[in-house]
């Protein structure tokens, strides 16, 4: 079947099998490999992208269902070399280790902050509850989102909470 959609502000069109998952279309047809596959069953969230402005797990959607949609992936988050505040927060607050869950985590966090740039700890944890991370224990991910929220509000982020020096 022929599908057309906008991906990262670019019009794309391709022939796909009906059963092709959106995540496989993005990764294998468009070579946008920043979106990851962690479970293929919608639990881990590594494949989270924005579909028409909402966070969606792209392994739970067929490419044909995205026909006509506006898709944004992790590759679109930085613009002209400037990191998105959430990306900057992840770097500044050590919000990632292996980095595999990170693209999906960033997409979910960016959606949260789009709606509410001053979330509580509980609201942040709830917003990323569908994105599994095995490395960080979420501590620094929550801190990274707090950092990004502060930046988006034009405030100075709280200092990091790791011990300095040894």
């Amino acid at each position, binding site marked *: 079947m022929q599908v057309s959609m906008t991906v990262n502000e670019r019009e794309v069109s391709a022939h796909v*099998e009906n059963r092709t998952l959106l995540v496989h279309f993005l990764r294998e047809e468009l070579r946008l490999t920043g979106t990851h596959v962690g479970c293929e069953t919608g639990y*881990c969230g590594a494949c989270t992208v924005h579909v028409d402005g909402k966070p969606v797990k792209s392994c739970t959607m067929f490419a044909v269902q995205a026909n006509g949609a506006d898709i944004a992936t992790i590759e679109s988050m930085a613009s002209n070399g400037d990191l998105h505040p959430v990306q900057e927060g992840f*770097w500044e607050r050590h919000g990632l*280790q292996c980095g595999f869950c990170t693209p999906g985590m960033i997409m979910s966090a960016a959606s949260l902050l789009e709606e509410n740039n001053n979330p509580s700890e509980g609201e942040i944890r709830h917003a990323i509850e569908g994105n599994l991370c095995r490395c960080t*224990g979420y501590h620094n991910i929550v801190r990274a989102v707090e950092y990004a929220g502060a930046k988006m509000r034009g405030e100075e982020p709280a200092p990091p909470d790791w011990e300095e020096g040894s």
Partner: protein
Amino acid sequence: MVTTTSALGGSVRRREDPALIQGKGTYTDDVTPHGTAYVAFARSPYAHAKINSIDTSAAAAADGVVAVYTNADVAHLGDLLAQVKIVKGRPLLAGGEVNHVGEAVAMVVAENSYKARDAADLIEVDYEPMKAVIDLKEAASDVALVHDELESNVILAWEAGPWGDEEGIAATKQTIADAKDRDDTVSVSVEAVNQRLMPVAIEPRSVVAEWQAGYGRFVIHSSSQVPHALMGAVKTTFGLDATHVQVIAPEVGGGFGVKLNVYADEILVCFAAQQLDRPVKWTETRRESSGSSIHGRGWVGTATITGTRDGEILGYELDAIADMGAYEQNFTVAIPFLGLFVGSGQYNVPTHWKVTCVFTNKMTTDACRGAGRPEAAYYLERAIDAYAREIGVDPIDVRKRAFVEKFDEATVSPIGFAMDTGDYATNLDKLVEVADYEGLKAERDAARAEGRYVGIGVASYCEVCGFAPTALSELGFSWSTYGLPAGFYGTGLVRVNPDTSVTVITGTGPSGQGHQTTWAQLVSDRLGIPVEKIRVIHGDTGEAPMGVGTFGSRSVAVDGSATYDAAERVATKAKDIAAHLLEASADDIELSAEGASVAGSPDSSIEWGEIAAAAYLPHRLGESEIEGGLESHVIFDPPNATWPFGSHLAMVEVDPDTGNVEILRYFTVDDCGIQVNPMIVAGQVQGGVTHGIGQALLEDVVYDEDGNLLTSSLLDYPIPTAEDVPFYEISSTVTPTNINSIGAKGIGEAGTIGAAQTVVNAVVDALEPFGVKHVDMPLRPKRVWAAIQEARG
């Protein structure tokens, strides 16, 4: 603004991150050479069955199928190589029988992954089911056999007290028996399950093999913690030499032990690539990962503390059975031995420790973050907590009374191993202080007075890390099966390039631990060149002459130390060159970010560019007898393992109506010696603790009595989400090791080793008003609620 500091000990922002936060890192499944074909496996639905026949004709005729292989096609390659194979290794593809659900029976290669999976479903196997061996006590008593050709399911028993000393063991047993006979003593036992876990890296395993037929050479990308072991296994299996097998572990999306194995699928993908003369890729699904990538833990046992009624511990005993699964893979039977190393923990207490390793009709067990040490610490610390509770003495006081005293020279533990350095009381005192233990107890008591079920749990642990001294290879833990040198040394190569950038090549295989940053800090500390100019290459057997990989919290202590020492040698040579060019004494030369200068003579200086240029243009070195080049390669064989330690405290609240456990506070005071990057160290602890909380509260691999795997998705096997855990309160003490030049011990597993028993101790404390003495992990609401109901009668 990203701030950096190059000093050792600074929380330098990671060099790895810019690519990863933009979706521009390369993981194995992102590698797709032109013409790649895709693999899917047909897998056993039975735990134990004879294979009467396999019909691959429909699969072979299916659309897009390139090839189908069964055991008959690959049997000539032999079994999968394994490090510590005592009895029974794994066939590459099942032969006459299958021994666990998920065992691979046939391999399909097709034009894309969808077609490969379609065709794998068309493979027809005539199975004849047999009795499955699932229960560990039944396995140990040989009610039925996993492998008919063997006399027993028991592979071996690890026994110590101390290790390797039969007379000593007999004497220890007598000492403990005598203590039990005294009138003023009690013995308190905890019979507990340390359940089977899946490590669960979020990146599934993946391998891509290219066979360069013209050169007779493999190039393999694999999501591996041990690229050199895979290189060795491939070269040995296919009869090649090390220059003809290049294994690259690019970005690896988490390890936790699941990628610390050479797997049959990796060898089979290489085989198919060679046979078909085209690139071949396999990436596991989560369901496949659940049944056919290694599991960990899986012990049942009884831990007993004998001591006086006023809190002096006189003996510790552990008698346990450990589940090895159906076949031995990489380390399998060695994992409980890692627990044995730390069987007596931080305590100067006569210890008799025995763990019997048995086959079962389940997936193989191997390393899961901590690997043997969490199990050992769990039993010991649960038993100490139960003893303290029984005699009514504060568990902190019981521990401190039993600690090995502070030592800064090698000291032999009761279990029989020389530990490097330790200061346990100072560490626990700091925990008491930072957590405000007395204040927390008052809070708990106030909550109880209000009818809330709040509890505090404490646990201490001692680790063994930094594998390893070559002497350990004599125990059988070595890379020699893979045709590589036996010891677990470390390697580091440091090269200042002509343009003053620095290339570092090391033998590790990290999966998120930040080696590019940490190693750059180590080198910068020695050379003065800023971390931004230092590129660290790891996980590539084509670059690193040799390496052992990343596991067992070994990397900084071993390969990091090799790199640190190599950088020191490069610094020495750079000073020699500068001294020659400045006509000064090398002893007076100081290095900095800019270059070299003569101490006390700021005008007499030279830039790095001139030093590097001279190194590569030897005529500038004149008659100095300095050789060209500015690099050093160091192999470091540590004289001992490292022995990190720490203490954790959890405060929890249990909802008596639902059994739900909430973690209110979690404190850690870990001691990993010198910290190269405290930010990364804290991150390792936070992730490790969460892994341990996952075991305590959520995770459990469940096979039913017929050996069907009931937990093959992340819904059935829940790992902690952001809503399951609190912010952590992280502190440390610093007791440097004296076995390497950095003074670093290792931190990757500390959090996991300390956490599970800390949480369970806290929950048991919370349930004290009900008289609950133990609840087996995972402490899911239903199980906790049932324990409350049972205690209430």
